[in-house]
């Protein structure tokens, strides 16, 4: 029963949710909408479990003065401060005319956004280092990749576009690379992935795939 019941629930809910794509009737949509709301509520509840997990992972290290425990204090302290301020301010951070004081909005705008942007900005350096490795002409395929990438990059900047005589041909060739071989490959990946997704979904719905339940 412990194994059968989840399989039955998966099958029934799976079929209902697949049906949502094919049945436009509002009563059916209301039913699937209700089910999705249950899902959202469950997801919201899981945030509390996530918070508990964090405390379980980090507090023992702080208590035992484990490695890097100081950073965990910063983490837990910042978490506590943000939570307290968030409970105090509620949704006030959404008010565009509010006075900028130490508030949830202040934390969001002046701490969180810059830190997040900093992390994102690191991507530029990572792209450069990964690109350097990927574009090394070690074999024929890598050389082709290097040439294609160099051409696309060159034709995408004003220097390349503005080249006398060959500039306009470069742009046409760049567009062809993007629109024809690149697009064809992407579509092939999408079609294969879509079929794989259908197959995986059906495996789960039909109960053939049970590894998430611990196998047979």
């Amino acid at each position: 029963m412990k194994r059968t019941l989840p399989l039955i629930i998966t099958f029934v809910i799976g079929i209902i949710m697949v049906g949502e794509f094919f049945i436009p009737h509002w009563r059916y949509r209301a039913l699937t909408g209700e089910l999705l709301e249950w899902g959202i509520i469950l997801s919201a509840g899981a945030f509390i479990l996530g918070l508990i997990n964090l405390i379980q992972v980090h507090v023992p290290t702080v208590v035992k003065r484990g490695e890097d425990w100081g950073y965990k204090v910063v983490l837990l302290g910042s978490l506590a401060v943000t939570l307290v301020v968030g409970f105090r301010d509620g949704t006030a951070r959404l008010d565009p005319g509010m006075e900028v004081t130490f508030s949830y909005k202040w934390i969001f705008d002046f701490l969180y956004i810059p830190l997040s942007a900093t992390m994102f900005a690191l991507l530029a350096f990572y792209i450069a280092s990964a690109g350097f490795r990927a574009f090394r002409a070690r074999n024929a395929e890598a050389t082709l990749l290097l040439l294609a990438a160099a051409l696309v990059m060159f034709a995408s900047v004003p220097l390349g576009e503005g080249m006398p005589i060959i500039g306009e041909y470069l742009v046409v060739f760049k567009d062809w690379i993007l629109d024809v071989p690149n697009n064809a490959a992407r579509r092939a990946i999408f079609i294969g992935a879509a079929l794989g997704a259908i197959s995986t979904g059906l495996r789960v719905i039909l109960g053939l795939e049970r590894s998430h339940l611990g196998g047979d």
Partner: protein
Amino acid sequence: MNALRTLLALLLAFGLSLGPTSVAFAQAPAQQTSAAGNDDDSAGDDDDSAGDDDDSAGDDDDSAGDDDDSAGDDDSAGDDDDSAGDDQTEADSGTAVKSEEWFSPSPGYLTLLLLILATGGLMLYFTKQAQQGKEMFIRRMPGIDAIEDGIGRATEMGKPVLYVPGIDDLQDIQTIASMLILGQVSKTIAEYQAELIVSCCVPIVREVADEVVRAGFYQAGYPDAFRPEEIRFIASDQFAFCAGTNGIMLREQPATNIYLGRFFAESLILAETGYLNRSIQIAGTAEATQLPFFVAACDYTLIGEELFAVSAYLSRDPRLVSSLKASDYIKVVVVASLLIGTVLTSCGFDFFINLFELTK
């Protein structure tokens, strides 16, 4: 260095606290930032990375294999909730026209339904054949073989294996596939007596991962080796999660990093950190925009549909392998349809491609 770590810890903490409210969790995937830069509207727009393909390549929006139909894209699972939710809201407010039709008149829906039914039918047929003892062939996939090698390497080095199931919600088919793979991976890790760390961006995914890993250890016969504190919820915000996971890589030095699921801009930041850490890295995603980053930074990359075959490949269960065979047959049908459609449309006959029309 310490200042940087403190900054990362701060970012992580604020991401934890602000994430759920700053980014509505139900719509989080659609708001993640992509390295390609065009993902803000929806994950389905990922493809735009290669330039303005949608305009230049013709009718991408309606074409097969494009954003709207791609596996793992929102329409497959993730965004359905949004659309359904919207419908419900609109239905409640009375602003939308309530459809009284039980079946959509567009022929594409019927075609798609037939395709799904055919896949299911073939799957059951081949499963029955497999149960009768017929051998099912599956081609060798080095990327998947490398998972077991990577676990062996981690065992020998006495270091953990880091598993990242993407940053999307549980409704996404790629996350579901990742959870299925995690079941097999955790079983192998338990058998090798290695250590596993699962880094999760979504709390509900962590809870499911917890159950899946627990079941894997139990099935392998080592239930006591399961440590729930190693299934970690990091942060629900994209870059806070990325910072936290990078921290795990740098502090705990995993020997093997496995990234399987749906990724956005954080893919390269994670993979490059793992590369600098000299870990063996195996990645797999159906996100076309992130594949080049994984290919550049990882040792092995599972491309598109390979992600959905991993579970069957690792388990070697004939029933699951048979489902791949069914999928391959349908692929032949789709490719044949593409060729027939191209020829007929080029000759001026539109009736065939009209069979795939999906107008609401």
